[in-house]
């Protein structure tokens, strides 16, 4: 049953999928054939078809992370044909649709590859390093209850808009996967920028950037060498300018704060 386009022809595809039993097991690429794939399907629905088929045959379905399938939760994380989230720019894996592929295509599907993101199983990876970076300082230290009236802190619209742009990061990790150094600079800089731009974040501005960068290093992410693949592959368009801002914030903090670590 086709959707909006009754003439859309179903496709047959070859999938080369990374299979790995658990974190310590040796992984390998396994080939699968999928048939009668509608171009109206999303990429993950195509994988659903594969998994239902595998399960019915008594084979282990392919594990992958996903949830909202609306491009906002940041769960989905497939490396498709050598690109984070696949061939379509500004798009998460769940919003990629099969009409971007052609009958007879071979599609290579791998997990995010980074030391800081160990594989749980197959295509599912552990991104808890991102949580620990936020725990190191990605917040404003206020308790519930003591906040002043929302309008007591006027914020110029352009500043609020820029902070919002940085705050839209979905934490998927495509920036790390796309980077040849597996650097987390775009992710970290988005949070640092958001809170450095807003007056609410100013009090802890210096310690925040120092602590978050330190945690990023502890987690084993690589250094930034200004290639820009992160921003190019980011599904929500987080700008490279944030990294420039992070570097500036970090330098100022190191030069002027009392934190000698």
């Amino acid at each position: 049953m086709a959707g909006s386009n009754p003439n859309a022809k179903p496709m047959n595809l070859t999938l080369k999928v990374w299979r790995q039993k658990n974190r310590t097991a040796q992984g390998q690429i396994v080939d699968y054939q999928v048939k009668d794939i509608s171009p109206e399907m999303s990429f993950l629905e195509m994988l659903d078809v594969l998994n239902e088929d595998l399960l019915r045959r008594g084979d282990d379905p392919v594990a992958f992370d996903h949830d909202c399938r609306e491009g906002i939760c940041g769960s989905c994380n497939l490396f498709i044909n050598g690109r984070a989230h696949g061939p379509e720019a500004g798009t998460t894996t769940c919003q990629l649709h099969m009409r971007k592929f052609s009958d007879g295509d071979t599609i290579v599907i791998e997990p995010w590859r980074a030391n800081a993101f160990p594989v749980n199983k197959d295509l599912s990876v552990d991104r808890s390093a991102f949580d620990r970076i936020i725990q190191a300082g990605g917040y404003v230290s206020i308790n519930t209850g003591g906040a002043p009236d929302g309008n007591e802190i006027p914020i110029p619209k352009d500043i609020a808009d820029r902070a919002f742009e940085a705050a839209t990061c979905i934490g998927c990790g495509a920036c790390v996967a796309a980077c040849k150094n597996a650097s987390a600079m775009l992710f970290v800089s988005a949070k640092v920028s958001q809170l450095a731009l807003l007056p609410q974040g100013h009090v802890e501005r210096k310690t925040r950037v120092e602590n978050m960068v330190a945690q990023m290093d502890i987690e084993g992410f690589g250094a930034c060498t200004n290639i820009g693949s992160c921003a190019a592959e980011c599904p929500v368009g987080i700008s490279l300018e944030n990294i420039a801002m992070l570097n500036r914030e970090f330098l100022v903090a190191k030069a002027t704060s009392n934190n000698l670590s």
Partner: protein
Amino acid sequence: MILDSKIPEGPLAEKWDKHKFNVKLVNPANKRKYDVIVVGTGLAGASAAASLAELGYNVKAFTYHDSPRRAHSIAAQGGINAAKNYQNDGDSVFRLFYDTIKGGDYRAREANVYRLAQVSVNIIDQCVAQGVPFAREYGGLLANRSFGGAQVSRTFYARGQTGQQLLLGAYSALSRQVAYGKVKLYTRSEMLDVVVVDGKARGIITRNLIDGKIEQHSAHAVVLATGGYGNVFYLSTNAMYCNATAAWRAHKKGAYFANPCFTQIHPTCIPVSGDYQSKLTLMSESLRNDGRVWVPATKEMAERLRAGQIRVQDIPEEERDYFLERKYPAFGNLVPRDVASRNAKQMCDEGRGVGSTGLAVYLDFADIIKRTGADSVAQKYGNLFDMYAKITGENPYEQPMRIYPAVHYTMGGLWVDYNLQTSVPGLYATGECNFSDHGANRLGASALMQGLADGYFVIPYTIGDYLANTPPTPVTTQHPAFAEAEADVRARIQKFLSINGTRTPDDFHKHLGHLMWEYCGMARNAKGLTFAKAEIQKLRKEFWSDLKLVGTNEELNQALEKAGRVADFLELGELMVDDALARNESCGGHFREEYATEEGEAKRNDDEFAYVAAWQYAGDNQPEILNKEPLEFENVKLTQRSYK
């Protein structure tokens, strides 16, 4: 048990303040002697966990996601209501209270809703202080927009990503407490049972989704913030993992389930395109401000359109039926969600639906594009138009969108008293998980408000009242109830794995979803509901004898996870049907075809049904017991909604 809603005495506007004074407090030095478990890290869970930890309690927070930030609160688009009256347009706490009670078709508790309206203003302050980047005016102050069901502008927003920004705010507060060691965070941990000791909730059993390890966790109190059950319909706008297991396990341990048949169908979603469809995507309600809803005037025209013999552009203006504008001249395309949804269904039932499946109506922007230009429309709705194009492959600037209603939210949930405590002492429910403040229909931009109200500003007070009466001695997992609950969880998992049948969990889920949508969806009648009940019972039997799984418990096994959730949906689905059958009236999202006005609108029966239906579990395959909490309205006058 007698249903005691524990609504404080006194005038409506003073109840919450008086109650806050009357509840017992836990001495600051004693707070660290109490452990609290919070299950779920969405808006309601993360805000509760952070706030309780800030007070000094030891919190254990659980999520089945890889990070607290993935919870489905993140997908909310429109905004969050608050009675700030920043726009000087006549808003007040009482008006927000009134709109919410009326929008809910008079099936919510006055006292709870009034409190919700009161604390709504604190939520905005709290979120701003956290660094949530709300939309602002050029003068630097907070911007508002209007939303369905209200005549004032009280909705705060962050473009079309309000839920994301609010959740990231709550997540940052939670992360701060994790760093301080006051919250212990358990990710990829799914709650599979509540442990009840001597009638009180004392812990939970969880399964680690990565290695299958079954764990026991103890605490002095347990808070469930595990969301709604819309995925019982298989297709909904909920995220794929959203499920009812935590709430349903609690129900089977003694927590009453209230108004399960109150589900919200959202009118503007992208229609189903095929059997493979895994979920539905909402297009924000705000589109109805400028889009016009129509179908071809005749069945013949619709048939030719579906067969591809004519294009939508070929249909002349006089052959288009703008049915909402025709039927509801006063509100037009802006009628409430339930009315818009039912009318779209009716058009499709008449054979006038569009798209290849015939299950869609048009939402047309041609007029506004002609009037203001495509650029201006793009500024307003650009991200939504892009999302639509990405999913459907069609350009909504050139041809009308196709939309169809989809399940979006569940107003029903665990019954709670004014303190948000369920019928099991020590077990609390917050956010969409409880039966909530929305009555039979939720207004737009009110879900975020309720989740954060419960978590930031209600539970931190009310849980103290319970804990102050609980000895601060450590709670351990030594009590045999823990081992028993763990054994039950293990036995259930082994049962799933040993059936070795032919049908996958998804296959059963789809089947159930079809029954629910067909017979317990937008319109219901006694005959269909009775039929569905028998079919669900049959399906449940088949599930337990023909389920197909592979692998073991001791690994990441997503099909096994799904099997547990579907097993619970198969029980909850039947209770929803029972509830819909027992409620012989139409109200809000619950439309019984037998109870309609002459014009086909919902007809309430306040004399007999102004109550909360709180269902009590009575044992496997036993009919549940219906307890009624009468709803008393002292501050609003009950009226029939009319949008003509």
